[in-house]
């Protein structure tokens, strides 16, 4: 028998980490299947969460099914720990799972994220949980689920390359800059979620497990540790990431993904790291060295 609730339940009608144990198990089963078939979208019984769908309910359910009392949770939204979405999800888990939270990428065991992958490479004891609004990379080709499933089944991805062809024809380069499709383990093509394509190379042979949850579309998929992830490209138009015309004005980084800020009416602008933890850690280290 699967227990209905965690033995250390905090009272009747409430279970640790919001979901009851049976729901968590069903999600974990879907995750196991997703890990076994890298990049394949596994359907799961997505339930209502106390958050609007599209705000990360899929990832929220994955995190809820994984989190334990020893975990340290980090939640980021567009690279920042203090953005609304991240702050509310963090306070949710503080409340329902008594979770210890952190803003430090190095200290976290579970990192739930939206739109970014942390700059610091993940370790094998860390799990990245990504919020996915649209898990189907072929959706822009056809609205029919049956057809996209068939295309995945037969690896019939020619039409996806047509989109690259069209981009290069029209713009001389691939204009897609986020949610840039990737081929996982040489087989399934998956959506990396709406991260900038700058972050795509970070997924290739990453040491951490990456789990993708789409609550509204009821799909989970995974990129297991050390899995080959390649971004689609042509031989003569290789995949490339964004470059920035300046260094971070706070920490001086030239290797991280930068946000452009307009700082005055005269068009003055500056660039700062999108990953706030990465940036503050670097500033801290620099100040420490100066002293």
């Amino acid at each position, binding site marked *: 028998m699967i227990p209905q609730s965690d033995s250390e339940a905090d009272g009747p009608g409430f279970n640790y980490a919001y979901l009851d144990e049976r729901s968590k198990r069903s999600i974990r089963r879907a995750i196991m299947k997703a890990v076994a078939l890298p990049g394949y979208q596994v359907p799961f019984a997505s339930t209502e969460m106390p958050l609007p769908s599209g705000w990360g309910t899929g990832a929220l359910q994955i995190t809820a099914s994984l989190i334990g009392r020893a975990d340290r949770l980090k939640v980021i939204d567009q690279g920042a720990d203090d953005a609304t979405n991240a702050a509310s999800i963090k306070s949710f888990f503080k409340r329902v799972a008594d979770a210890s939270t952190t803003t430090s990428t190095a200290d976290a065991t579970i990192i739930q994220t939206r739109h970014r992958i942390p700059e610091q490479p993940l370790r094998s004891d860390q799990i990245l949980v990504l919020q996915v609004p649209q898990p189907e990379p072929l959706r822009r080709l056809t609205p029919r689920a049956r057809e996209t499933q068939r295309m995945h*089944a*037969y690896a*019939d*991805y*020619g*039409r996806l*390359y*047509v989109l690259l*062809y*069209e981009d*290069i*024809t*029209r713009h001389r380069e691939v204009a897609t800059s986020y949610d840039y499709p990737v081929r996982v383990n040489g087989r399934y093509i998956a959506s990396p979620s709406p991260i900038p394509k700058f972050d795509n190379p970070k997924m290739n042979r990453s040491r951490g497990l990456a789990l993708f949850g789409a609550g509204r579309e009821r799909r989970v998929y995974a990129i297991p540790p050390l899995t080959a992830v390649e971004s689609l*490209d*042509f*031989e*003569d*138009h290789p995949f490339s990431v964004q470059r920035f015309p300046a260094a971070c004005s706070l920490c001086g980084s030239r290797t991280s993904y930068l946000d452009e800020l307009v700082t005055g009416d005269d068009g003055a602008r500056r660039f700062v790291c999108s990953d706030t933890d990465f940036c503050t850690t670097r500033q801290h280290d620099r100040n420490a060295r100066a002293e």
Partner: protein
Amino acid sequence: MTNGRLGSVVLEARGVSMQFAGLRACDDVTLSIRTGEVLGIVGESGSGKSTLLRCLGGILQPTAGTVHLRLAEGAHRDLWAVDEATRVQITRTSIGLVHQNPRDGLMMDITAGGNIVEPLMAAGARNYAALRATAVDWMRRMELSLDHIDRFPADFSGGMQKRLQIARCLVTGPRILLMDEPTGGLDVSVQARLLDLLRHLVKELAMAVIVVTHDLAVARMLAERLLVMRAGQVVEAGLADQLLEDPQHQYTQMLVSAALRL
């Protein structure tokens, strides 16, 4: 007619039948076609021509019968006995099907060039410059102006859409080309140009062609051999000129006498 220039049998269909709920659209059709040959299938609307073509093209599974195909490497495959993955692979590389309605065969929101090279990308071509050169080459061969290579097929005329669809079908070098009403909906002068183009292509590329049409003049111009279909059955088969000059079956006689003459 001499069979000297004809190659080996490319496609052989035996006893192909297609039963829809209350309708037998194809009834025990047997045919074979060789490399370099053009076979015409004529008959009135609803006689099962298009259904037969879809069965031969791997789109519609017949309720009975076999469709054997000789592939480039000389292997024989029964199109409807292999698993779906193999069938997709075979139809993608060895069979070109020109749909009656261009909207079924073209991606309307993708440029003409993208439409032409998509089958190559599906087969694994990953070099943009080479793909682009192929698209340009086929635009030229199809007598489509290069100004149109980056425009959308939705903006093309009916004749241009047909030619674009043919280019897309031929780009993988299929063993067999199936055409459903290649001149349907085109005016007479455009028809004549398209027929001219098709005749050149058939001569140039060694492949087998099956043309389905209700237009006897088109059939006579393109095909050497004809099948006459009625209510799902082949009522008469033979050399095109012979069959049209001296029709034996009552239905064929009716069909020939009903054709408009100027």
